[in-house]
C-alpha cells in the first residue's frame, strides 16, 4: 500500500485562501445569508478571454487546480477527480430560465454546454491536455469525499502517482432564492462571527473551490498524509460515536490520538446536534476546530476543511478564529475531519503529519 500526500492546494473561498503563503491572518466577517468568494485576479492564471467565457464555478475550479499544481510543481497529472454537489448552477439557470421565458425558442448552446456537472473536470483536462482518468462525483455533501476516496484508492494501490482532486460549487440566484423558501438558507442576516450562537434554522450559503494535488511521493511542499476517507449515506446520532471509533481503529488510530477534530458546524440548530454530540462527547477533551463561519455552507465546503487540516499539520498552528474550544496541544500529528449536510452524507477523513 502506497502512502498518499497532499502536495499542493488551491482554495478559493469567502476568505483569502488562494494565497498559499498566508494562513487566515486576516479574516473577513459577513453579516448575510449568502456569501460570495473572494475572487483572485483570474486573468493572472488564465487568459482574459477564457476568464470572461467561463462561469464562476468553472473559473474557480480551473484556477484552483492551477494553483495546486503549481505548488506541487507539476504541469500535468495522471487523473482528475472532481466533486460538485450542485454542478454548474449558473449556466443551468441561464439555460432553463431562457427556455421557460422564451417558450423554447431563441436558445443558444453555450450555457447548455457549460451546464453539465462534469464541465469543470472537462475544462481542467482540456486546459492541461490531461487524457487520463476523469470522474465527477455529484453526491450532495459527500461529493468531495467521494472524489477523495476514489483518488486515495488509486494512489494506495499504486495505479496512479499524481491525482488532482477537488470540490467546487457556485451560488446561483434562483437556486439560492428557492432554498431560502424552504428554509435551507437562514431567514435572517446572520453575523458569521457568532454563527454558532444564531440559534436559528438553515445555513449561510457559500461557494468555493478547493483543489488538491495528491501524490504517492512526499516532497518539500507536502502538507500532510491522507490516511483514510469514509462516507456514509445515513447515520443516526446514536451510532455516530461508534462509527468514528471504528473508523479510527480500522485505520490504526484512536480517539486519544486525535490532536484536533475539524467539525462542519454550520449554525443550523436542526442539524448541528451531530457535531455537538462529538464536541461534548468523545472529543470533549480534544482541540475542536470549525470553519463554516469562514466558508459558508455548500456541498463541497468540506474541501475547505481538508485544506484547513492540511495547513494546520503543515504549519503546526491553529488560527484562533477557527478554534471552537481552547485545549493545549503540544504537537499536531493527527487530525480528523467530520462533516454531514442536513443529517445525511456523513464523512470522516483522517490526516496525519508527514
Amino acid at each position, binding site marked *: 500500500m502506497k502512502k498518499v500526500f497532499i502536495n499542493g492546494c488551491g482554495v478559493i473561498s469567502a476568505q483569502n485562501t488562494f494565497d498559499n503563503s498566508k494562513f487566515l491572518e486576516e479574516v473577513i466577517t459577513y453579516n448575510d445569508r449568502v456569501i460570495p468568494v473572494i475572487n483572485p485576479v483570474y486573468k493572472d492564471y488564465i487568459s482574459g478571454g477564457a476568464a470572461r467565457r467561463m462561469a464562476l464555478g468553472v473559473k474557480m475550479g480551473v484556477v484552483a487546480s492551477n494553483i495546486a499544481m503549481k505548488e506541487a510543481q507539476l504541469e500535468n497529472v495522471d487523473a*482528475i477527480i472532481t466533486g460538485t*454537489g*450542485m*454542478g454548474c448552477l449558473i449556466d443551468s439557470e441561464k*439555460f*432553463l*430560465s431562457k*427556455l*421557460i421565458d422564451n*417558450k*423554447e*425558442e431563441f*436558445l*443558444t*448552446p453555450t450555457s*447548455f*454546454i*457549460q451546464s*453539465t*456537472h*462534469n*464541465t469543470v*473536470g*472537462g*475544462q481542467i*483536462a*482540456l486546459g492541461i*491536455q*490531461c*487524457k*487520463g*482518468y*476523469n*470522474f*465527477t*462525483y*455529484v*453526491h*450532495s455533501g*459527500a*461529493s468531495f469525499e*467521494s472524489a477523495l*476516496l*476514489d483518488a486515495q*484508492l488509486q494512489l494506495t494501490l499504486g495505479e496512479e502517482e499524481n491525482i488532482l482532486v477537488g470540490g467546487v460549487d457556485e451560488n446561483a440566484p*434562483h437556486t439560492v*432564492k*428557492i*432554498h431560502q*423558501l*424552504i428554509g435551507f438558507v437562514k431567514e435572517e442576516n446572520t453575523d458569521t462571527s457568532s454563527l454558532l450562537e444564531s440559534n436559528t434554522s438553515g445555513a449561510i450559503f457559500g461557494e468555493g473551490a478547493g483543489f488538491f494535488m495528491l501524490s504517492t511521493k512526499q516532497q518539500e511542499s507536502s502538507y500532510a498524509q491522507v490516511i483514510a476517507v*469514509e*462516507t*456514509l*449515506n*445515513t*447515520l443516526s446520532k446514536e*451510532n455516530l460515536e461508534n*462509527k468514528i471509533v471504528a473508523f479510527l481503529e480500522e485505520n490504526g488510530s484512536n480517539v486519544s490520538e486525535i490532536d484536533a477534530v475539524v467539525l462542519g458546524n454550520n449554525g443550523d440548530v436542526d442539524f448541528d446536534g451531530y457535531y455537538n454530540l462529538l464536541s461534548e462527547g468523545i472529543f470533549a477533551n480534544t482541540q475542536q476546530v470549525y470553519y463554516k463561519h469562514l466558508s459558508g455552507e455548500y*456541498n463541497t465546503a468540506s474541501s475547505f476543511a481538508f485544506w484547513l487540516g492540511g495547513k494546520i499539520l503543515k504549519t503546526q498552528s491553529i488560527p484562533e478564529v477557527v478554534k471552537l474550544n481552547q485545549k493545549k496541544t503540544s504537537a499536531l500529528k493527527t487530525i480528523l475531519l467530520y462533516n454531514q449536510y442536513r443529517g445525511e452524507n456523513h464523512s470522516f477523513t483522517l490526516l496525519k503529519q508527514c
Partner: protein
Amino acid sequence: MSKGVAITGMGIISAIGNNVEENYNSLISGNKGIYRISKLDTIHKNAIMVGEITLTNKELEEQLGIPLNNNYSRTALLGLVAAKEAIANANILDITAHKTGLISATSVGGMDMTEKYYYDYLESDANRKYIEGHHAGDSTQKIAEELGIKESLVTTISTACSSAANAIMYGARLIKAGKLDRVVVGGADCLSKFTINGFKTLMILSDTYNTPFDENRKGLNLGEAAAFLVLESDAIVEKENKKVLAYVKGYGNANDAYHQTASSENGDGATLAMQKALKVANIKADAIDYINAHGTATGNNDLSEGRAILRVFKNAVPDFSSTKPYTGHTLAAAGGIEAVYSILALQNNVIFPNLNFKTPMKEFAITPQKELKEKELNTVLSNSLGFGGNCSTVIFSK
C-alpha cells in the same frame, strides 16, 4: 487469471421494456421504442423522436408502492424500478447481510420537476417539496433508502453520457479492493425539456429514427431509462453459491481533452479507454467477440468512435452494433442499459442488430451488424462516450 468481478443481478427499464425480459424480447424481435414524445409538452414534439418509457409517473409510483405525497423525480422513479429488479434478480433477501454500497449515475437528476415548477416555487408552496429533489444525488439517496442500504458507501457520478459506465467501473474497483462486498451500480435519466432543448441547440437531434454508423445519419434520438447491476465479491458468490450472470472483466476511462462537447476526429479518448480496458482485462483485442458501440448516430460520434475502433482492432474489427435505434440515447443511463444488453448478448449468444442501417460511411470500410446474429460469445466490449471528453469502456465476459 482472474475472472473479474461477478455480476449477480440486473434490472432495467427503457423505451423497449419495463424489465429485463421485455427488453430482451424487444431486442431479438427488432422492436424499437422510438416514437413522437407524449409525456412532455415541448414545441419540438413534431421535429424530434424519442425513446420514452410508456409508464406515467403515477403508474410508476403505484407499481413501487410509494406514498402519494412523495417528492420523487421521474429519474428517481425509473432508477428505483430498475434497482429493485436487480436486487430481486440477484436473489438478495437481506441487503444488510453484507457490506453493500450503491453507485448511481445521472445527468438530469430532478430537472424534470425543476423545469416544471421553476417559477411556481416562488409563487406557491404547493410543489416546493421538489426543490430538495433537484440535485443529482437525490435519486441515489432515495434508491439506497428504499433498498435498505444504510450507513454505507453511496455516491453518484455525473460524467454526461459515460456516467453509468463509470459507476460500473468504480463499483468493480471497490469490490476488487475489498472496500465493499456487494455494490449496486448503474444509472437513471428521464427525459426533460432541458436536455431536449440543449441537444436541439447543438443541432444533433434527428427528426426521424436514428441510424448509427450510417453515411446519412442525421443525429440522435434522446431516450429515458434506468439500469442497475449487482456486483458481488468472489467470497459471497462462493459462500452463497450464487448464480453469476457474467463478469466485469475490464474497464478503462480516459479523457479526450479535445472539446467540451465534440469528440476528437481520431477518437483519442475512446481509443485510450478501450486500450486501458483490454489491459485491465489482461486480454488482447482479438478476444473481443462483440462491441456494443456508443453509436449515437451523430456525425461526430460515429466517425470518432469508428476510427477509435479501427485504431484498437486494426483490420480485425469484431462484430459491432449500436442499440441506440431501439432505446434512443439515454444519456447517463446509457452505459447501464448497454451493460444489461451486453450481458444478455453473452447469456444468449446473440448479437443485437444495429437497426436502421443502410449506407456505409465513406470514411471507413467497417459496417455494423445489421441482422440478429447467433454466435458463441465469450467477451463483449461496451463503449460510452460523453461531453467533457469523458470516454469509458467496460468489458464483460462469461
